[in-house]
């Protein structure tokens, strides 16, 4: 009787690609978010092709021009085209965002797995993680950037370090709860080594939460970069990033609010889109949702 119920229902287990498609098309919002992120990323990648002007070259005679046919959003205090700078700025901002997410996730994953499985290390590591979490992230980042000198790498490190503890905690908690799962115990019973258990059973469990966490880190890193620039501890102002376009342009707010508001808008839209994507991923991966899907 049970045999007849369902020996072959549904498609095979969803592959990565179908999963992605599922997420993207899960709701109109997710679709819009995907489209936005794609546009922004493509614009950044093909910046040299799509930017109307050189984003770095100074043209003092053209400074602080209002929006015009030539300069769609006007120019900044150095006579550089705002549109081009925003497009190029995406490169740095996205590199910072994605870089911070990747570094934080990878190092957090490594440390979290260690902590989740090695008792004595856990105690030490968790104290350090607690300590790092206690230091307000902007203060830490400012300190690191201004002490080590403002380069892309420093900014990246400064933004990443405060995020790592959160990832460590996340991974550790996933590992700790997965470790209680009967299938992990079954693996132990099957004589699998700790390493194999981590790779086969624990690691895959951390992927979904990490993707979600990664999108949030990415979004927050872009924001933090902007704030660091604002506080004068950002990336070299010669290189455009969304943060330092706004930071440099802010005293001209009353002259041409666009200098701050346009990059601000781009930052907001990007972060919004990334966050929405993160939400969509979460919804798609939410175990309760998944369960409902199966019962059907």
């Amino acid at each position, binding site marked *: 009787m049970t045999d007849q119920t369902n020996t072959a229902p549904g498609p095979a287990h969803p592959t990565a690609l179908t999963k992605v498609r599922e997420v993207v098309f899960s709701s109109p919002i997710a679709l819009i978010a995907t489209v936005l992120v794609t546009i922004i990323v493509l614009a950044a990648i093909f910046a040299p092709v799509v930017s109307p002007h050189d984003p770095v*070259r100074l043209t003092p*005679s053209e400074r602080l021009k209002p929006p015009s046919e030539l300069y769609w959003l006007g120019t900044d205090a150095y006579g550089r085209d705002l549109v081009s700078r925003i497009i190029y700025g995406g490169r740095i901002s996205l590199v910072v965002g994605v870089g911070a997410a990747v570094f934080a996730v990878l190092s957090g994953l490594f440390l979290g797995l260690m902590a989740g499985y090695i008792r004595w290390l856990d105690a030490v590591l968790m104290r350090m993680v607690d300590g790092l979490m206690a230091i307000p992230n902007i203060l830490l980042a400012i300190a690191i950037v201004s002490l080590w000198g403002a380069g892309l790498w420093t900014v990246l490190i400064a933004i990443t370090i405060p995020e790592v503890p959160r990832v460590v905690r996340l991974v550790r908690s996933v590992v700790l709860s997965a470790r209680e799962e009967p299938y992990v115990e079954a693996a132990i019973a099957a004589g699998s080594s700790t390493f194999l258990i981590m790779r086969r059973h624990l690691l895959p469990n951390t992927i979904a939460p990490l993707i979600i966490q990664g999108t949030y880190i990415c979004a927050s890193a872009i924001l933090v970069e902007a704030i660091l620039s604002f506080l*004068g501890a950002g990336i*070299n102002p010669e290189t455009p990033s969304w943060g330092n376009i706004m930071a440099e342009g802010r005293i001209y707010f*009353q*002259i041409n609010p666009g200098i701050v508001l346009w990059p601000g808008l781009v930052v907001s839209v990007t972060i919004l889109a990334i966050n929405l994507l993160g939400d969509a991923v979460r919804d798609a991966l939410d175990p309760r949702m998944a369960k409902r899907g199966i019962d059907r």
Partner: protein
Amino acid sequence: APVSAQTIIASKHSALRVLDPILTTAYMSRNHGYMIYDTLFALDEDVTPQPQMVDTWEVSDDGLTYTFTLRDGLMFHDGAPVTGEDVAASIARWGERDSMGQVLMEYVDTMSGSSDDPNLFIIQLKEPYGLVIDSLAKPSSNVPFIMPKRLAETPSTEPVPEQIGSGPFKWVADEFQPGVKAVYEKFEDYVPRDEPASWAAGGKVVKVDRVEWVVFPDDQTTLNAIQSGELDYWEQPPIDLLPILEANPDVTVRNTNTLGYQTIIRPNALNAPMDDPLIRKAAIASIYQKNVLDALIGNPEYYELCGAMFVCGTPLATDVGSETLTEGNGQDLARELLEEAGYDGTPIVLMHPTDVGTLRTQPVVVAQAMRDVGFEVDLQAMDWQTLVGRRASQAPVDEGGWHMFATNWVGADVFNPLVNNMVNGKGPDGGWFGWPEVPEIEELRTAYATAETLEEQKEIAAQIQELAYDEGMYAPIGQYFVPSAWTSNLEGVLDGPAPYFWNISKN
């Protein structure tokens, strides 16, 4: 404390941190010094020294003994009268720190008060020196401010423990919050001179009860605040915001510092390839001041192309050796020089402070100019304090050293060969950051110090400038003016190389 009509709220160009104007050359500390201390002499608007604390003075015929009589009734804020002893101690301390003071001290045999008359102050020279009064009237960092002897005896490497002067304002220590605000009150017992105020000379008549220097961390906020009347005086609004301020009928905008600022680029003569004068000259030749000033200031009303190392508008001004800077035609010369020097493409480390509004543009423009003629430039962003720490390093570039940086000087700090640090040719030992070693220029500076007439001084200054350009010691990359803005209810704001708060009334 409640805001009264008789309080001036002023936003200064940066936060007051170090309260000892002898210990540091920071302009904020100098401005602070002008509030609470008085000076023996001061320059008037004709750049001529006038007695300030001094009532009368005379020089012995051999030119070796200077006797100064202080005005009656001068009093420190703690109630003690000002004596020659105090003056002697203060000048001695200043002489340890200040570059012009150090030169003066080389000529001074003794300095003392007098047991007969507490108002007397006597300087005994070893040999005649033409710049005694000019030194005592030095208008900008470090200014020879007079403080009580007990404080002046503090070692010159340590800050004075108390802020007691005999100036027109008193320091309100309780309300001082570093980085937030500094508060001054009128010193009721101050006796101003009778002459009208002119720069820091003349009568320092205080017409308000209090002055508060408030630090605004954000220019945009400052702009909003002065427009909404929450701020009375803005020392250095960014040039780009001036049109907004000028358009506001309730705000007055005026340039009070007529000598303005000299912005400079300084190569490091210790590190290859900048140790080669040809390379230094090539870098300088590549620069066109107009590009720097357009990017930095924009509005030509507020800048001047000026190749004079000792500042345009002063007696020593000359354009010798500066053609490429002001004409912008040095690119070919620069390429030739590079060729001649055999530049191998070593990247030039140009330090770029990103947190100081008036300094973050120059490196960008200079880098572009240098790249245009064939330099490799490594523009390294950092905050100003990192730069300050790093520029002190004489090490090679890969050990934390550097090649070039830019900074600004107020005109009065560079307006003669003795105060102008960049033409110091003493090299790594006793020179200023960058440390070019040019013995000839040191001889010329000594000659300048002992020159008798202005004509002679002018000639020597011109020779110094020519040599300095030829050695590529540094380049002024433009002179600019930073007007101040204040609400129209302030009256009597004085001109001068530093901001003064006497003579201002508020209604």
